[in-house]
């Protein structure tokens, strides 16, 4: 019996089981990360056949339609905008293209719920457009088209960045060959560039789909219902078990998208022959100004307008005394929970990525995947799991700020893992071996030798977690204890009451912080 267990263990670790304490620490971290989601699935088993059937019959079909149609629609628009922009700034002689390369990624710094609020201010039924022209826009912002538009303009940068990176990496050989054979610039784009970009477009599209599936703030404030907002409101209503049932369906939907992505990645490959050379650019000629107008319009709609609205209302808010002691209290609360989450993530990421990097094996990759559970799945579900689990098993943590920090760690740890992991990849395993030979235990190697070497990656990871936490909305709303509001919560509450002068300063602060990690993101792509 023991013999069998030993054999399984050796097989799982590819013949080189790591130090017991190290694998235990990593296993605990990974299990904690996956626990909230697992607990939601477990609880849904107690919802009873009646409830399951009733929901599957009455609620799920409608939600599937509203969610999937939105996700596909947003993705289609985001891919068109993202690819067009990427091609313009990387393959044409568009004036100012170097500046546009980073400027067009700026919408990522605006959380879509903040963006949605600014669009309500301008295009809403009682918005600025009505004040200026006497009538609101013919298409209501509170409609499918409105949600589609708002989500698309704040998610296209995913596609823009991924396809842009592919365009720079992609050798020019195929395109040049095609041109030398007499194809015009548009034909090259259509018959060579776009087909070669397909894997990158797919990767960007998956990011957008996953975002739409998980977004809560923008859809809820635009009064559109997808799975996430339905789950959130179900929590507000009477029936928490129904929320777990809807969560399980949403988890399944997310897993299908992830599986499709993995499948697509395996099949679609292109070879880039030769080292990338500076491109000889397509001359836009007379189209130059039209292209410039398009790029400027995108920037105006996605950055200038939202930030302008926020600055306008913030100025009024500051005049009305919005920056009072309460406001700084909210900012302080935000910094506390986000800071704690960042710190914990920096420490917790290391054992998991270390194991994955130094002991690649089925077991270490399983642990890594477990740790991704809370990242891949919507925050509403993480919060739901933590509420159920916390009330029953963590009464001392439940209803404290620590619970919110834990939710952030569960949601964003993989950001710290990715960043620490890429630093760790640059550290030769020889160094570990030397430290072991010198008599350090495996945990001491991590603490005293590896940590100083991967510090840049850990810090960058911590910064990413910090900023993501500042923006986080659904888990914060559901888990905050009495008397503990954060900036994101205030933006949400004030905006739902149309008190924009109080919502704007907090939103502007969130946006200002969110600009910081963009630099890191842009270096990466």
């Amino acid at each position: 019996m023991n013999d069998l267990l030993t054999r399984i263990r050796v097989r799982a670790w590819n013949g080189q089981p790591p130090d017991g304490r190290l694998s235990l620490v990593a296993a605990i971290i990974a299990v904690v990360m996956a626990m909230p989601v697992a607990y939601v699935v477990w609880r849904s088993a107690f919802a009873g056949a009646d409830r399951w059937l009733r929901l599957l019959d009455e609620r799920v079909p409608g939600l599937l339609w509203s969610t999937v149609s939105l996700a596909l629609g947003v993705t289609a628009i985001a891919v068109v905008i993202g690819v067009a922009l990427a091609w313009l700034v990387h393959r044409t002689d568009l004036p100012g293209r170097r500046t546009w390369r980073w400027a067009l990624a700026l919408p990522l710094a605006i959380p879509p719920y903040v963006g949605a609020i600014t669009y309500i201010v301008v295009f809403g039924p009682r918005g600025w457009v009505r004040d200026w022209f006497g009538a609101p826009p013919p298409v209501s912002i509170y409609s499918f088209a409105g949600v589609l538009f708002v989500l698309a303009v704040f998610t296209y940068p995913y596609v823009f960045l991924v396809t842009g990176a592919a365009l720079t990496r992609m050798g020019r050989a195929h395109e040049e060959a095609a041109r030398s054979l007499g194809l015009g610039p548009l034909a090259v784009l259509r018959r060579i560039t776009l087909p070669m970009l397909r894997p990158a477009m797919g990767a960007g599209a998956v990011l957008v789909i996953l975002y739409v599936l998980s977004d809560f703030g923008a859809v809820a404030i635009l009064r559109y219902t997808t799975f996430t907002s339905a789950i959130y409101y179900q929590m507000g209503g009477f029936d928490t078990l129904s929320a777990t049932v809807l969560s399980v369906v949403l988890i399944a939907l997310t897993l299908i998208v992830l599986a499709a992505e993995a499948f697509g990645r395996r099949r679609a490959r292109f070879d880039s022959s030769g080292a990338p050379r500076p491109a000889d650019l397509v001359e836009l000629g007379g189209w130059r100004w039209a292209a410039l107008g398009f790029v400027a319009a995108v920037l105006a709609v996605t950055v200038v307008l939202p930030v302008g609205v926020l600055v306008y209302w913030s100025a009024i808010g500051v005049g009305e005394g919005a920056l009072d002691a309460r406001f700084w209290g909210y900012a302080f609360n935000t910094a506390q929970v986000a800071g704690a989450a960042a710190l914990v993530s920096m420490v917790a990421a290391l054992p998991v990525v270390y194991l994955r990097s130094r002991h690649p094996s089925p077991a270490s990759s399983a642990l890594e995947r477990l740790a991704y559970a809370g990242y891949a799945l919507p925050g509403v579900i993480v919060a739901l799991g933590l509420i159920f689990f916390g009330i029953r098993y963590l009464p001392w943590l439940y209803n404290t700020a620590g619970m919110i920090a834990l939710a952030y760690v569960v949601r964003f740890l993989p950001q710290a893992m990715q960043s620490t992991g890429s630093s760790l990849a640059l550290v030769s395993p020889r160094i570990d071996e030397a430290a072991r030979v010198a008599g350090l235990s495996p945990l001491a190697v991590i603490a005293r030798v590896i940590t100083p070497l991967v510090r840049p990656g850990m810090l960058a990871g911590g910064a990413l977690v910090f900023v993501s936490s500042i923006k986080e909305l659904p888990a914060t709303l559901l888990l905050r204890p009495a008397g503990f509001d954060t900036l994101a919560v205030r933006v949400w509450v004030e905006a739902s009451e149309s008190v924009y002068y109080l919502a704007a300063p907090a939103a502007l602060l969130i946006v200002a912080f969110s600009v910081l990690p963009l630099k890191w993101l842009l270096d990466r792509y």
Partner: protein
Amino acid sequence: MSRSRSLIALLLGVVLVASAALTGCAADTDEVSGDGPELSEPGSLVVYSSRNEKFVDPLLDKFEADTGIEVSVLHAGDAVVNKLSEESRNVQADIVIANDLGALEYLRMEGLLTSPGNVAGIESIDENFRAVDDSWVAVSARTRVIMYNKDLISEDEVPTRVEDLTDPAYEGMFAITRGGNSGMIGHVSALRYEWGDERTEEWIADVKDNAGAIMEGHGDIRRAVGAGEFAFGLVNNYYYHQQLAEPTDNNVGVVYPDQGPGEMGAVVNGAGVAVVADGPNPESARVFLEWVLLPENQREFSWASLEVPINPEIEAVPDARPISDYTVHAMPLRELGAYWEDTRTVIERAGLDLELK
């Protein structure tokens, strides 16, 4: 490169300061939230509120200033009831402030509230507006009314009976809230008491189809009616007063429905305060209840939301019609509790979604 490094150093600084602060704070909260009465500090109070926070925060600030008791409040909307039942084995709150007496009576029937014992000033509230064991007390009243936009419709064209909302003549002209809204639930509970379930369900189904919009809350309706998106809407009376107080879009009027001879009268609901069973700070809860029943605080409670005080001794907001001024539906408000849970099912069965889809 050096710029991004200094950026990261800056962020790290923020993170370090913040986490140091958090450790300090976590130690504080541990002391306060430790369960069991012997650990609790008499100097604090945890309030869960489902009312609009703009109405509640000034009141709680005044309580803090008057008594020195430190208040932590969670504004969680309708989620409060659910949160209290989820937390029954690890009680966090001392006091509930709610918009809907049906919800409070429901909490009482579930055993989640407790009697505060002898409380000074409780006699100032009519027995019809308290729980049998005084575990909840209503302080202010609101009435279901029809608010209309005077630019779009004249007073004599506005329906005078709630029943008339199903009239095809009004198709698309008005707005109601989603089925799960506490005001809507209270209203439907009263209709069930008056009409029985079958007729109530028919009414809901017809009104839902006849309405021009089903909105998240009454604040949305008052703003929409004020802005002329709809001719009228079914709201609580204080939303009409709120819209009147707006700098723009304020040309609105009000009709109290069902006032004719033999008609049911306008449906009334209340907002009030309840004492949570096994809360961490029972003494503070009692202090709060006595404090809120002081005449000046009863006035503050109703005036913040422009509702009408239940205690006739307390002066009402200017222009608000006192309850004695119009015919009120005869059901005792504590009866709402028995209907509260089922009413959601009735509403859903009739086809009006509890949440917006």
